[in-house]
């Protein structure tokens, strides 16, 4: 068979996928770009060309900077916490103890729980009048009176971060555990023979095996955390006083609550641009780490 026929055949087999992808992703994305230069409303008028007005107005407005900061803060704290606790959990699950198999199985539960159910569950736990957190803290004596964890700007974001970390650290732990199990036993044995301390064994023997998979987990989780919408929408809708409003929530409000499709589209593209930069930057680092580890 000739090479051109094989290539043509491949394109033919991919054609259905490509047609669908252009219809549901390519075209909408192009249309978002076009909309972002108009003052179109969500329903009714298709709007007229306004150049970069949407972008300039958004970036100079005070909602944008504050929301970008909240989103970045959320992403950095959530991802860092998940990586630390995920790796610690994986190191623990890689040791010998009773019930290890059961505990490894439990790890999948928070990950499998639907995001909206997780958000609802924590919303109930944080409930200001009947919530389990208030009850537990007052019953042990840490708290004098019930608090509105999600209703106060000072605690709402932290409460969300805890809920998100609980659901997502098991994913990091599962990836890290699989990587730990790939460390050859004889390399570990050799480090004992050489008299390495526990710390240097982790730093010089284990960590190189963990680095690649963890970098990938870091990329995926950072991008996901930056896009976060579901958990915040269900728990606080971005409130109170916009203290938990992230970029995706802001786009939703702009495009769908205020029906400003044009400026919502500009905002969505800014988010896309930031995520693309993150993905490319991380991609470069991942290649470097993967190259140096092996």
């Amino acid at each position, binding site marked *: 068979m000739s090479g051109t026929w094989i*290539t043509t055949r491949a394109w033919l087999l991919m054609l259905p*996928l490509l047609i669908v992808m252009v219809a549901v992703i390519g075209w909408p994305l192009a249309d978002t770009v076009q909309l972002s230069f108009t003052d179109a409303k969500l329903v009714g008028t298709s709007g007229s060309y306004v150049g970069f007005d949407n972008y300039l107005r958004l970036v100079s407005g005070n909602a944008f900077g504050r929301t970008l900061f909240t989103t970045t803060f959320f992403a950095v704290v959530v991802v860092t916490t998940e990586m630390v606790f995920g790796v610690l959990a994986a190191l623990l699950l890689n040791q010998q*103890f*009773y019930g290890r198999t059961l505990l490894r199985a439990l790890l999948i*539960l928070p990950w*499998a729980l*639907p995001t909206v159910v997780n958000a609802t569950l924590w*919303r109930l736990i944080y409930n200001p009048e009947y919530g389990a957190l208030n009850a537990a803290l007052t019953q042990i004596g840490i708290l004098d009176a019930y608090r509105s964890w999600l209703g106060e700007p000072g605690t709402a974001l932290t409460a969300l971060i805890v809920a998100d970390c609980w659901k997502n650290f098991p994913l990091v732990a599962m990836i890290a555990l699989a990587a730990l199990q790939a460390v050859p036993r004889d390399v570990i044995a050799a480090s004992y023979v050489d008299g390495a301390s526990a710390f240097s064994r982790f730093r010089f023997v284990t960590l190189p095996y963990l680095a690649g998979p963890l970098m990938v987990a870091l990329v995926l989780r950072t991008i996901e955390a930056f896009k976060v919408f579901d958990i915040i*929408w269900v728990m606080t809708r971005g409130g109170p006083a916009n203290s938990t409003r992230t970029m995706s929530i802001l786009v939703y409000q702009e495009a769908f609550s205020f029906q400003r499709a044009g400026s919502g589209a500009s905002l969505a593209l800014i988010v896309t641009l930031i995520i693309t930069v993150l993905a490319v930057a991380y991609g470069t680092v991942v290649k470097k780490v993967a190259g140096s580890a092996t």
Partner: protein
Amino acid sequence: MERQSPLFRLFLHVAALLLAAVILAPLVWLFVMSISPAADLAAKPLKWWPATMDFSRYTVLLSTTENSAGAAFIASLRNSLMVAGMATLAAIALAVPAGWAVSRTPSVGWSLSVVIATYMLPPVALAVPLYMALSNFGLLNSVFGLALVYLTILAPFTTWLMKSGFDGIPREIEQAAVIDGASLWQTLRIITLPLAMPVVATSALFAFLLGWDEFFYALLFTSDQRAKTLTVAIADLAGGRVSDYGLIATAGVLAALPPVIVGLVMQRALISGLTSGGVKG
């Protein structure tokens, strides 16, 4: 090889108990809320375990009486099954030929990178035009429209998994069949597809869970019982004026059961899928 000191062993077991408690406490509490009488949940100090278990909310939510909380719940359950099911079938139908083509034809490999890159796109980047298009075609508040939109997430993901799956099937087997006179179609049908069935099943399962979990598009594109999915119904319950928190918890338990059961039963396959994707990027 490694000898654990008694102190270290104690530390390990304490840490393991702590980890188990952190994972289980919220989940157990969700279940306890679902079987506690409403009065217990509103009591101060809070009752951590009900005197009598009350499973009546499960029968309430799973009853089909007209205009009851159950009818709305059953409708959303059916919608979730239909949307996730249809989107999964379509995604697999697109992903199997495309995944095979990319796996066997390195010269078109770059197209897969483009497909995977779209998976990172934030849904907000597509939401406005998709909303306008669905509205024009009369597909807002329709399970078919929503299933079509879910392909934006499911199709790239399943193609990626199928490509890795086909990579694991030696092409020598296919070449042998071709040499024996089988046509390409026969080869794929008799040799390759049966070997790829486990990967197809895992991909389908992953895709279904993604569809089951989806909230953003469902929130935007559905408005009543004809198309509202379970995630939207639960968010409505959580944000609405339902006075019985146990009912919200019960809906949560029921929505969580399918993915949790799948997760526990398919643990090995899911983790190898996660990590192979994770390691290869």
